[in-house]
């Protein structure tokens, strides 16, 4: 019998019934498998309010195959007894001359649906002998639903063009959607989190009127990377332990020699109001090529170009690009990372201006609580480290470094004396790691990147709080 027919039968019986009916009883009356009735109940349930079905479970005792045999044929002992011929065995020593087959009688009671007439002890003895088993039967108590009807039609799964043109959708019931299921993900590319954060920083700089500096030279001479910044030639940063030098091409081919002479004089003898470092400045040292250790070398080039343009015009510059350091590698340090740098050059800039620009910049990042600590950088004076209050760690953490470029750096370039240049920098990786909750920088940068992380990372809104980490679900 097909599903639909069983359902129809069920509905008709239900209509005639007084209150409801039991699925197992119905199956017995119709002489069909209980499972078929259950199927019909479920398909009617899916239609909505046609019927109501309450799951009930009942326990009853059933005979096992062996139990069935005994109920029919008698117990093994009884059968042995009966098979002994009356003329006797030498040992009619069975010591009984007649017997009641108690096991058979008890099993027959169970078969007759009167298991309750047996005591608990008797039932459990039979169960141990594997003649009897307790079976749980799940049945439905079916009653009329609020939309009860004996005529049902099959549900449609989806709306089709034909239904729309014929208007048949008006009369058709539709199968409900399972809104708990997941949707199908669209085919899409995924940007690396560093790219997402970088474009946010670019956006912020552009909103603030900053122009992007060219930074397309990973290879830099020591001159632009250090000497131009008034960083002395014996400075520890210029050590092999801190900087990657080049074997090939080992030396810069050209340097702006007029300017180089002014830089040399400022280092070795002073000038422009400075005592200088008073040491023997060497051109060979300045020619040494390296992988740039900061983007400030690009800023120095940009400021030098600016100084050659007369008259001076105020500028705001920024850059975000790769730098290289001979660091000890660990979970938060790599030999290469990205630096974000902002520079403003104008007449009469003050430390207050630097702090004001930093406040605007960090406010756009969603960081409002700032504090400034005196610090030392070789090429800025005054220098200040920027700290922000971290709500999670409950302490002040360093978020950037900043300062006013030293006159010994700016004046040899040819910038006017009353022009000040304020600048600040931070790394791209650190805010990205914080934003995306990444603890190991190797998972973020380089070929060991975790692609699943790239696939799953949300878009970057620096001014919004990061999502709290998922909490452990109660076991």
């Amino acid at each position: 019998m097909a599903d639909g027919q069983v359902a129809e039968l069920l509905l008709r019986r239900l209509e005639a019934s007084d209150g409801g009916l039991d699925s197992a009883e119905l199956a017995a009356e119709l002489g069909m498998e209980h499972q078929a009735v259950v199927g019909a109940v479920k398909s009617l349930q899916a239609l909505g309010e046609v019927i109501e079905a309450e799951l009930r479970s009942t326990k009853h005792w059933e005979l096992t195959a062996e139990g069935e045999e005994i109920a029919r044929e008698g117990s093994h002992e009884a059968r042995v007894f009966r098979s002994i011929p009356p003329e006797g065995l030498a040992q009619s020593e069975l010591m009984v001359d007649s017997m009641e087959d108690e096991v058979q009688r008890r099993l027959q009671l169970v078969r007759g649906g009167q298991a309750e007439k047996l005591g608990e002890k008797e039932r459990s003895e039979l169960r141990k002998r594997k003649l009897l088993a307790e079976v749980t039967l799940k049945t439905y108590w079916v009653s009329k639903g609020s939309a009860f009807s004996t005529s049902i039609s099959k549900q449609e799964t989806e709306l089709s063009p034909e239904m729309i043109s014929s208007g048949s959708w008006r009369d058709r019931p539709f199968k409900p959607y399972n809104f708990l299921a997941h949707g199908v993900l669209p085919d899409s590319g995924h940007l690396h989190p560093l790219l997402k954060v970088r474009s946010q920083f670019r956006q912020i700089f552009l909103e603030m009127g900053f122009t992007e500096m060219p930074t397309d030279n990973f290879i830099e001479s020591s001159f632009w990377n250090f000497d131009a910044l008034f960083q002395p030639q014996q400075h520890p940063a210029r050590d092999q332990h801190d900087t990657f030098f080049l074997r090939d091409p080992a030396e810069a081919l050209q340097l702006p020699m007029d300017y180089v002479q002014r830089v040399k004089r400022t280092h070795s003898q002073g000038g422009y109001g400075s005592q200088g470092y008073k040491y023997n400045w060497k051109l060979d040292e300045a020619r040494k090529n390296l992988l740039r250790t900061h983007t400030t070398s690009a800023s120095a080039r940009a400021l030098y170009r600016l100084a050659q343009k007369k008259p001076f015009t105020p500028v705001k510059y920024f850059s975000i690009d790769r730098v290289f350091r001979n660091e000890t590698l660990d979970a938060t340090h790599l030999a290469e990372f990205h630096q974000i740098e902002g520079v403003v050059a104008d007449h009469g800039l003050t430390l207050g201006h630097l702090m004001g620009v930093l406040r605007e910049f960090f406010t756009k990042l969603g960081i409002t609580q700032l504090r400034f600590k005196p610090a030392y950088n070789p090429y800025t004076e005054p220098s200040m480290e920027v700290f922000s209050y971290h709500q999670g760690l409950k302490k002040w953490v360093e978020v950037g470094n900043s300062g006013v470029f030293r006159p010994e750096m700016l004046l040899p370039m040819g910038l006017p004396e009353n022009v000040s240049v304020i600048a600040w920098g931070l790394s791209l990786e650190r805010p990205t790691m914080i934003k995306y909750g990444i603890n190991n920088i190797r998972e973020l940068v380089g070929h060991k990147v975790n692609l699943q992380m790239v696939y799953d990372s949300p878009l970057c809104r620096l001014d919004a709080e990061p999502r709290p980490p998922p909490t452990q679900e109660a076991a």
Partner: protein
Amino acid sequence: MPTVSVKRDLLFQALGRTYTDEEFDELCFEFGLELDEITSEKEIISKEQGNVKAAGASDVVLYKIDVPANRYDLLCLEGLVRGLQVFKERIKAPVYKRVMPDGKIQKLIITEETAKIRPFAVAAVLRNIKFTKDRYDSFIELQEKLHQNICRKRALVAIGTHDLDTLSGPFTYTAKRPSDIKFKPLNKTKEYTACELMNIYKTDNHLKHYLHIIENKPLYPVIYDSNGVVLSMPPIINGDHSRITVNTRNIFIECTGTDFTKAKIVLDIIVTMFSEYCENQFTVEAAEVVFPNGKSHTFPELAYRKEMVRADLINKKVGIRETPENLAKLLTRMYLKSEVIGDGNQIEIEIPPTRADIIHACDIVEDAAIAYGYNNIQMTLPKTYTIANQCSQEDIADKLGVDISATKAVHISNPKTAEFQVARTTLLPGLLKTIAANRKMPLPLKLFEISDIVIKDSNTDVGAKNYRHLCAVYYNKNPGFEIIHGLLDRIMQLLDVPPGEDKGGYVIKASEGPAFFPGRCAEIFARGQSVGKLGVLHPDVITKFELTMPCSSLEINVGPFL
């Protein structure tokens, strides 16, 4: 940034008051220091070598304080305390004096042999000093800090301190063949030649780092007294004969080096810090150094320099409006004794010998700002009016004539790892390694990178040039050439480059390359120039990157399209 570790209780005793950790942290922050760690000797040993070794070690609380790299005057307890007390106006900055001895001046004579190896030397005497265990430890520790920082690991300057009462001047600083130098060095029980010592110290964890400074030189520097006793063999080791102890009363200090300016600064720092414990506080006995040209100089210099800065300059640079008198007070708190002179707008600032970091007016401006309190400065926005521009790399088009493949990679002389010996000339290996590290991810893997590569180029000032590349790979059960090709078509569509060989269009032509499977490689020509290649990777390449699936790739120089 150097870290100085001081005993908390000694520090508070010297400061004349106690602080909570938070209060002291706050004071450091304000002054430009950083309370980096609160620990103890026991904790340090237990962290580094385990609890067993730490048993019995001292659990006296230590403050580890980060000091700015240019403030050599804050590298010991004595200096830190003096700096903070002056800052808090609890004491006035002491005045350091150089005095002539009652008897004969100590002489150090430099011979010309030193010229090629370590030409400079300076010297001074601390008379009637009174050490305690803590003071003595601090004295030794300061020398170590100076050696590690301003002395550039003894390469620029090396310090030797000696018990003057065990020696007899005049002293001679000369250079000799290593086999001709023989003495009993510190912490050894017998005499060795310099050659032997250099061998012994190869396994000394502390000293082995300094050997390279003189190792391959024909002559080693050495200082003798008038009886031929070796004071030291700089920059390696002192002699045992003149070693100082807690009970030493008169100290002869010599600094030798290759940087005269720094040698003088180092000497000034040591004597200003520790003359505090001399019978005549803050006075230092002069020593005479005779240079090979016969000229004599007296050390330590202990020079006080006067600088003149206008008050309105400080106000303008910081962005505050303080009276000249107030600014002078602020500077005085920073160990720079200042007073208003002249027209009432001029401030005369005295730079003491401890503040070698003050070399320009901007250094004075910074100190005024620190004393004013960075966080008290009113934040303002500059009126700098500018129009933002994004970077374009137009200059690349004319360089396209350069055949990129014929140029060479840039080599690093001190690479960190085998993987990091050249600057990359192609992006493909990085993407293939990324796939190898992500083999558990479902197929297909479609990756791209747009980044700079570096090529040697003698047309630029540094001899190398960046190119902006785009690389994409497709990794699946089938090579998917058509997918990579489709990506190229799409990129060109978006860049407004039409298909076709006409000028301005793009086309791909059969080609070959070692990375590609024969017959499955094409060269990409756009706007009449070769810009890159695409194709199915050679199985050997796939295997070498520990991959197992077919893979196709595309790499182009995007410079011409920007």
